[in-house]
């Protein structure tokens, strides 16, 4: 009989091998799926993984990977701090929405004044919006002991309704012929989160994502707060003896995650998306949770996981339109990839041993 035996420390080797293993298994299983749908499996897999990176139009898709990956990475970095300390914020989607609303709100309030100060103000407002929304579960947890998983999740639905109310009401474009949705911030220079270098996809959100990765890396490896976070996650009791103040940790972790998610929303609404609309949120906040785990809660891992997710999105779209694969097949393929990535992680932390059946 097979038995799992916990490794004293996560295996460094398997940490690197498992993701590759998962991708290979997914390619096999996904290939079988595509073949069952009557499509050439090799071509489909190549389209998803190869085309965006090295295909004919890679010059366009590579920057798009950054645009699609940046919000995922930015949010996931924030979430990973809390996840490491055992603080479960799963409401990043709501914080993302509120950050977009406050950020866009500031921009729209100044319309049509042009000033270099407007964009920094929007950045600040976006971060504050996300931070404030995350403070609700944090404060309720500290004050009343409520479960932050559930409160933060409930607040996602509230934020979604708020978004609809804003897009149809106060933020509606007065020149929009009565249609829902705000003005296009991309046509308002002072509020536009434009590409910094043409053709690279780099906008302020991408820059922020990279800064967040570096910052989180330094924090976790060099700073005492990072040590406290790791210690709390691994041994909560010991952490308390080491002088960790759990309340402060909750505020810092949820606050950081909220602020980063809010920033992601703000950069998205003022750049790639351009406007506040009813369907503005497309699930980045939830996908980022998966990204955080795929990246094993490590900043560099998250960077890679975010880009991998972006790759499957973009490659999947190409496969849809080039090969006529249904969107559902791509969704299923992504689901498989996540399953396998999550499943193989067991090899990092556990050894598989053949054990004899114990004699009673």
């Amino acid at each position: 009989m097979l038995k799992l035996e916990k490794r004293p420390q996560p295996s460094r080797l398997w940490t690197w091998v498992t993701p590759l293993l998962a991708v290979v298994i997914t390619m096999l299983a996904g290939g079988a799926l595509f073949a069952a749908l009557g499509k050439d499996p090799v071509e489909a897999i190549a389209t998803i993984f190869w085309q965006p990176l090295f295909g004919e139009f890679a010059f366009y898709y590579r920057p798009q990977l950054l645009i699609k990956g940046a919000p995922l990475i930015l949010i996931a970095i924030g979430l990973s701090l809390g996840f490491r300390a055992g603080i479960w914020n799963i409401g990043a989607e709501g914080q993302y929405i509120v950050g977009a609303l406050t950020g866009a709100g500031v921009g729209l309030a100044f319309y049509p004044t042009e000033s270099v100060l407007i964009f920094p103000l929007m950045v600040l407002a976006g971060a504050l919006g996300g931070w404030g929304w995350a403070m609700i579960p944090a404060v309720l947890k500290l004050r009343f002991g409520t479960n932050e998983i559930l409160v933060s999740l409930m607040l996602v639905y509230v934020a979604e309704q708020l978004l609809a109310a804003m897009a149809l009401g106060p933020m509606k474009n007065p020149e929009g012929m009565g249609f829902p949705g705000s003005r296009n911030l991309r046509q308002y220079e002072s509020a536009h989160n434009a590409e910094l270098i043409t053709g690279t996809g780099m906008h302020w959100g991408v820059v922020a994502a990279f800064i967040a990765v570096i910052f989180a890396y330094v924090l976790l490896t060099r700073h005492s707060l990072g040590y406290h976070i790791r210690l709390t996650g691994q041994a909560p009791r010991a952490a308390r003896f080491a002088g960790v103040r759990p309340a402060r940790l909750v505020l810092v972790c949820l606050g950081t995650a909220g602020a980063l998610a809010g920033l992601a929303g703000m950069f998205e609404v003022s750049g790639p998306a351009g406007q506040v609309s009813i369907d503005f949120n497309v699930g980045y906040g939830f996908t980022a949770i998966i990204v955080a785990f795929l990246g094993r809660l490590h900043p560099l891992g998250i960077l890679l996981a975010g880009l991998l997710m972006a790759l499957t999105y973009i490659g999947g779209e190409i496969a849809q339109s080039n090969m006529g694969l249904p969107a559902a097949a791509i969704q299923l393929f992504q689901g498989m990839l996540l399953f396998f990535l999550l499943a193989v992680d067991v090899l990092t932390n556990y050894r598989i041993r053949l054990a004899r059946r114990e004699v009673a």
Partner: protein
Amino acid sequence: MDMGSISPELLLASLMVAATPILLAALGELVVERAGVLNLGVEGMMITGAICGFAVAVNSGSPAFGFVAAAGGGAVLALLFAALTQVALANQVASGLALTLFGLGLSSLLGQGYVGIKPPPVARLDIPLLGDIPFLGRVLFSHDLMVYFGLALVGLIWWMLKYSRAGLILRAVGENHDAAHALGYKVVRIRVAAILFGGACAGLGGAYISLIRVPQWTEGMTAGAGWIALALVVFASWKAGRVLLGAWLFGGVTVLQLNLQAAGFAIPVEYLSMSPYLITILVLVIMAGDKSRAPASLGRIFHASQ
């Protein structure tokens, strides 16, 4: 504006129907969470149940077979989750989210070819005598079988958790899996069983939408009902009776909102739609001081290290 045009009797009757899918799914999730497992994949299991039930009902001509298939479909998907979280010890939050993604994709693939088809009708039970009671007859005794199944399930789960030995073990596993293991209970086996039960219930809830409530198949037709079911479990503070209350509240807010609009009241729809979630948060705060709180091992990974 005409309040009189709303008939309380019919309002309550539609509320019973509107509440049934989320009630079924939430009851399943309640058992799962009581066993200490958080499965966020309810939406994925519901929609898989919706298409499995629909396809089998259409092909066999029997809604009953449909519901059985729906429960089976939901359970099979839940088995994936069980394998990930109980065998491979993966994180439950991430696995649940992945399950939803997977279920949505799978259901749309399975559902190709079922768009625009009418499923076989499910008869409404008009219970003689009881159905003739004024007011209550229409509200309580003129529904399809699944509505009563949902109500019976509430009672059954309530009884099981409170009085049966199986319920006691389930709760022990959910409160402290290490202690339960030390007492000799098979933690993993019990949790897998709970997860499968949860999947089956979610599947039934989904099929209720595709076979009775709507009834048709369209992609993404559960439209977030699974997430509401999750909220419901929390709202109910993990108690079966309160799940029923919550299902009426969540279902009721939508039905009432639509009825008020039809009666000509100008209501801020978005703000009203927020209210059940805000109420849920409020309930969480209020009951924080209460003994009834989340199962202590909820969401934590169990590994028996001897």
